[in-house]
């Protein structure tokens, strides 16, 4: 009969001790704020104070019945979906083109050039684009449209174009990062697969379509999940350009801007945290759906 195993061995204790700072950090800075936010979402809070009268699901029903919340969610989805799909498609094509270059210096040059916007802060990007997309004929883009005899476009002032303009702006910043990730993936595609297909008479486009793309499916999936999460959290650029109204006409009001308005302008932390948890549930559901879709299709190899 083997001796009874002790509940905690010396090794276990040492392990826990080493992990303690990290666990304490996660508990204090991640678990506690999440729990406090959940607690606040059921309370009528006053300002930043966590306590307040218990109001049950009242904050949740207020948010769910608020047309502004649904409008914000619609805008978030619209810009998120476009940013993710266009971002993935463009960066993958760019990565493939860069990868096919035979000239190493050129490869590094393009990697650097496309990655550069990624190190520029969202604030600087928004400022830059507010002048590039200036709605008058003085704006750079409108000035160029003028050469073609076209009228100035209200890129950020006309609700018909504003969301699309934000998508274009975010693509400028994100494409470089996605391209680098795709490039890393492209370099890991085994050469023998390509060589075998080449022997079988497959052209470069067919090989790209039937070998490269399927092989990179996990990377596409990673991009899709991360892009979806990032897209649902869009805030800085729309706030800087559209203000608290998400101007023009509320077309740039996103879910996080709605939360910000309630939390920091109206000091209604209860409503804001309820909206945060609703957004959390939506992101969780979207990610779960994507995971399920990926599982149904099976692994890449």
């Amino acid at each position, binding site marked *: 009969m083997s001796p009874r195993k002790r509940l905690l061995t010396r090794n276990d204790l040492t392990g826990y001790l080493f992990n303690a700072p990290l666990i304490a950090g996660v508990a204090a800075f991640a678990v506690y704020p999440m729990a406090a936010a959940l607690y606040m979402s059921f309370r*009528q809070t*006053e*300002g*930043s*104070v966590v306590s307040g*009268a218990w*109001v049950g699901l*009242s*904050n949740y029903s*207020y948010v769910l*019945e*608020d047309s*502004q919340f649904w409008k914000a969610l619609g805008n978030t989805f619209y810009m998120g979906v476009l940013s993710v799909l266009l971002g993935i498609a463009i960066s993958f094509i760019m990565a493939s083109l860069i990868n096919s270059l035979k000239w190493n210096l050129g490869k590094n040059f393009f990697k650097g050039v496309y990655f550069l916007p990624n190190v520029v802060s969202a604030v600087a990007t928004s400022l830059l684009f*507010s002048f590039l997309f*200036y*709605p*008058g004929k003085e704006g750079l883009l409108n000035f160029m449209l003028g050469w073609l005899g076209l009228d*100035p476009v*209200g890129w*950020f*002032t*006309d*609700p018909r174009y504003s969301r699309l303009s934000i998508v274009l702006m975010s693509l400028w910043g994100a494409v470089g990062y996605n391209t680098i990730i795709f490039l890393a993936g492209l370099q890991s595609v085994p050469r023998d697969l390509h060589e075998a297909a080449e022997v079988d008479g497959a052209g470069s486009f067919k090989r790209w379509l039937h070998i490269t793309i399927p092989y990179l499916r996990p990377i596409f999936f990673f991009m899709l999940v991360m892009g979806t999460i990032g897209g649902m959290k869009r805030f800085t650029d729309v706030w800087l*350009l*559209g*203000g*608290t*109204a*998400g*101007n*023009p*006409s*509320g077309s740039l*009001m996103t879910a996080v801007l709605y939360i910000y*308005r*309630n939390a*920091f*302008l*109206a*000091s*209604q932390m209860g*409503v804001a945290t309820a909206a945060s948890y609703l957004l959390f549930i939506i992101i969780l559901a979207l990610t779960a759906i994507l995971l399920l879709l990926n599982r149904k299709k099976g692994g890449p190899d």
Partner: protein
Amino acid sequence: MTIAWRKFALLLLAVLTALTAACSSGSGGETGGSSGGDGVGEVSDISGTVRVALAGWQLENGLDTQTGKKTVGLNDFLKNTFNKMYPNIKLELYQIPWENVKAKQSAMLLSKDVDVLYTGGAFASQWYNEGLLRDIDDLIEADSSFDPSIYLEGIWNNSYSTKSPDGTKQFGIPAVLGRRMIIYDKKLFEDWGVEPLSDKPSPEEILEKAKRMTGKNPKTGADNYGLHWSGNSLNGSTFVALTLAFGAPGAEGTLTDPKSITWKLNSPEMVKVMEWIKEAAVLPPPGFVNGQGAETFGLENNNIAIGIDTTGGATMSEFMTNNNRELLDRFEPVMNMGPNGEGWVAVDPFVMAKDAQNVEASWEVMKFLSGYETQKYRYDNFASTPTLKNADFVSEEDKFIRMALKIAEVGHSELMDEANPFYMSDIVPAVNGFISEAATGNAPDIQQFLDDLQQRAEKWSANLK
């Protein structure tokens, strides 16, 4: 490395060192504002440590980015003044950038890590309602050396930034005023043959004259815009001025008890406010929807006839830098649109934390930092607008600050104010959204828009238990 190369490298190093030294030398450049301290001696032996959180104040000496003048940081100013006057009070200064200042100062208040704060008026008002700030009536009463009458009456008596919502308690001292006035370009008025604005222009007068000056300038042929205001203003100051002008209070009640506020957002007077906005929104340059379009207002190439809620900062900077008196004469400030020339006036106060560790010393600090000497220092170095009745240090030429003081003198806070949570979270964004739609000629039905806003406001109040 050859000897010649070494010599060359040494020579280059010497030149670079000399250049660096020359650039950092204190003799170059214009000297800046005062650092105070003339004839200062000890005034009190009160002792203790006071922790002060300052939103946006500059602690170290630096340069004014617009005028190139040297500016004296708060540390140097205090060394020459406060430290001599109160040698036993130790100050712990925390400089907090305006970005996200509310979250940071809220955290300091909640963790009881601060005694005195300089902050935005709306934040102060909200903290007071949350019970995080201390009333200062007892301190004022016990201190014969403190004279509240030195401050502008309109601000001292009527601002949510320093007084409790019911107006019975004082919790802050006004330290810096926001500048918002109507400024018009005399040259454009002359070009178009339009009568100058009156001293207290009504919204109708502004609109009528702005319409006449929108289009191709008859003299220069340049595109002119009759009007500009910020279409995405955070505090909706132009909307506030219009509600005052048209007698549309928007709500009745007190911010002490927000759930008891009676909303009157769809009143006939409010309809008039929105009708004015609808007509006016097609006159500014299109960028105004996102707060752009007035980049050259106040300067040589200006193409906007009337600017609402502007500061005159660009013109004053030009005057300070290049002594450009022509521009100073060209741009003329007038009162705001309220019946007495009033508009929305921002006030940034000094306030004391509810749990201040050393109340006596904190009071001395608060008093000093919002007093005459400090306001003079702030004006000289950073062109901050004072809150004093007799701000004799304001330069004769600075007609913009003088006008701001006149507007503040008749100022009063109403429920359409950034201290009102629903106003900030919903009313201002809704009005800004309306402006952006009206700017493209697609303004929604005004009555329906206001009915919807009214309904949302009532629902918001009902949600407060």
